[in-house]
């Protein structure tokens, strides 16, 4: 079974601070996706990274895929209260259904 481990599990920070969330696996993934989920809603896709070493930016969010395609990180600059939510990484382990990490719950205090 290909597992994805996320860290930290919980993160509570003040508005304006920077943070990084990590997603690690011992297995290689063809691609990794990052989702954000708010209470009572389904996950919403933020980005997909497919190439080892790839860096993608989405406004204040920077996503990186490790060179070996086993890990990924999400960095948020100058966090806002609107960034609060559950961040999930997910990979495709050779079938189309996704394998999800356990998530990082982020709370940004105003």
């Amino acid at each position, binding site marked *: 079974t290909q597992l994805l481990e996320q860290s930290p599990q919980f993160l509570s920070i003040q508005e304006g601070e920077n943070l990084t969330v990590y997603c690690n696996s011992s297995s290689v993934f063809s691609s990794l996706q990052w989702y954000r989920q708010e209470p009572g*809603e*389904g996950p*919403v896709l933020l980005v*997909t990274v497919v190439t080892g070493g790839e860096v993608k930016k989405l406004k204040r969010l920077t996503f990186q895929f490790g060179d070996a395609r086993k890990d990924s990180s999400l960095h948020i600059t100058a966090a806002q209260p609107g960034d609060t939510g559950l961040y999930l990484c997910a990979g495709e382990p050779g079938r*189309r*259904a996704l*394998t*999800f990490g*356990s*998530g990082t719950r982020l709370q940004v205090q105003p």
Partner: protein
Amino acid sequence: GAGVSQSPSNKVTEKGKDVELRCDPISGHTALYWYRQSLGQGLEFLIYFQGNSAPDKSGLPSDRFSAERTGGSVSTLTIQRTQQEDSAVYLCASQGLPDQPQHFGDGTRLSIL
């Protein structure tokens, strides 16, 4: 509607009862997935339908769980003889082409008393 629709949004039932959860995917999407999410956790794959192919049932946790997809559209997930450990949010997602993202519904929150 434009998105994936799931019903009911909440379901409370007694242990031992059967439940049916419904998913209406985005029109034209050929792939449909069911996942389960325990409180504050990641999603656990349950079952996957692709067109008319036999479904991938490898994630179903026990034979009390089953799902069908009628006419390549609406899907129903059935849990028989529910147990307290079945309490979770059940999420459905649909997908068009393989390189397109999965679109999730808002889930059904199932509580077993």
